[in-house]
């Protein structure tokens, strides 16, 4: 069983792009410990030769690789928090 502490939750939060407060981090570490403790019940099950199941569909379905333009540029940008010249605008990415 892995040790869940605030440091691990901080690392996971960075991966998930979540800027958590210290209080949130600490509370989530406790929740995560409880939930993973409960999930330990899966550890005793014999899973030798059992394939993983990722979905419930009846096999692959393919369609022709044809581009369809359902969404206009205007529609695509209608909910943008910031835009300029028909593009999404974001804060600076590369240091300057």
């Amino acid at each position, binding site marked *: 069983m892995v040790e869940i502490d605030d440091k691990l939750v901080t690392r996971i939060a960075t991966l998930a*792009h979540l800027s*958590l407060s210290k209080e*949130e981090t600490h509370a989530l570490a406790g929740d995560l410990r409880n939930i993973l403790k409960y999930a330990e019940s899966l550890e005793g099950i014999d*899973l030798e030769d059992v394939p993983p199941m990722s979905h*419930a569909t009846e096999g692959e379905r393919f369609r022709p690789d044809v581009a369809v333009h359902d969404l206009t540029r205007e529609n695509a940008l209608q*909910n943008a928090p910031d835009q300029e010249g028909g593009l999404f605008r974001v804060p600076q990415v590369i240091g300057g």
Partner: protein
Amino acid sequence: MSGLTSMGMAELATAIKSRTVSASEVVDAHIARIIEKDDRIGAFLSRDDEAARAEARIIDERIAKGGDPGPLAGVPIGIKDVIHAKGLPTTCGSKILKQFQPPYDATVTARLRNAGAIVLGKLNMDEFAMGSSNENSAFKPVHNPWDTTRVPGGSSGGSAAAVSAGFAAMTLGSDTGGSIRQPASFCGVVGLKPTYGRVSRYGLVAFASSLDQIGPLTRSCEDAALALSVMAGQDAHDATSSGRPIDDYGAALRKPTKGLRVGLPREFLQIGGDAGVMAEFEKTIAALKADGAEIVDVELPNAPHAIATYYLVATAEASSNLARFDGVRYGLRSDSQASRGGLKEMYGETRDEGFGPEVKRRIILGTFVLSSGYYDAYYVRAQKVRTLIRRDFEKAFASCDVIATPTSPSTAFKLGEKTANPLEMYLADVFTVPANLVGIPGLSVPCGFSNRLPVGLQFVAPMFAEGTLLRAGHAVERLIGVAAKEPAL
């Protein structure tokens, strides 16, 4: 005309088409009831009354000219706020999407509108469909129409409460681990989760893509059959939608109970529900037996592992699906000082401000189980147990047509009763999550009352056997007949 807000969809459409009542009168009656009562319930997040009235007038004009607007002519419906309906916002019950305007109709919305249904508004829900009580809505809780100090269930709490309270003849919900069936049970209405792939999910904001399905909440199994007939079928926009022919659900529904084999997983049932819930459940099973059903013992040895499996698989998928909410293309963007430091800071601050506690909890858990070093021990292990659970059900269905359990171990609990302990809230999904993991359809139908609160019975059936489910559900309605009761609001 009185009683319009108590009528079923089929009944309303027939009355409107025969001009016994106009679509405008029906829509006005529902809007009036919402205005009068929804302050106490909190079912709706947004409405467009004028648009609904205008649609009703168009339906009435078409009928006056001898046209047929479709099988749902003039029927007022509501849509869970995780499914797009053009003209109304889609918030997912979250601050992060507070002002999102969908540029298109979900396929289900378009199909229902083409069949003549009129969309009254969008319904409250747990944020991103994560929750079993509707208390995770970022905007307001929903109150159960049978007792407003209690929760309506979740995550489709607004959808269940709206049908129960007479605000809409039918509503749409989404069900990832029980989110249609459990609130249907708590609010005394019928809730159907179709087979994975039976209904297109185009226009549904994704929570856990291998588990999510859209389905109807209604006052009767007959209405659920009618709604599914309109909603089901392949869609070029959803690669997981199935091309299988759609059954005649109305005909299946009317088949007699005699010969129906009902499986009882006695060992799984020992996990237990409240005494009052179990008493109504057993009474209903006895009534089915007396009416000609064959009761068969079945075993689901891995079903008790479904909750742990579900919370690993569903959160993993959710953490991936919710990565798209980052303040760039739509939704909230933080304008805090810290968010101005650069792109990564903007992502982190936006997501911290925009998501509520339960969503963050699940993103953290899901990111953890997918992260390097833990992936095999948690995520892949859960996927393997999922295979074992599916095998259990396949084996059980060799000797029965449907499997019966209570929908939920309890009736509606008090607001605030379970919010302090997330794990306890998860455990309430014990009877509903297996169907999502396996992909099979599930139906909750009212089967009685315990302490004046509705009790729901759940049937599950093999893949694409919705007709058998509705037949079993309709038998319960005939024998127990509680679906006709309404809360005194």
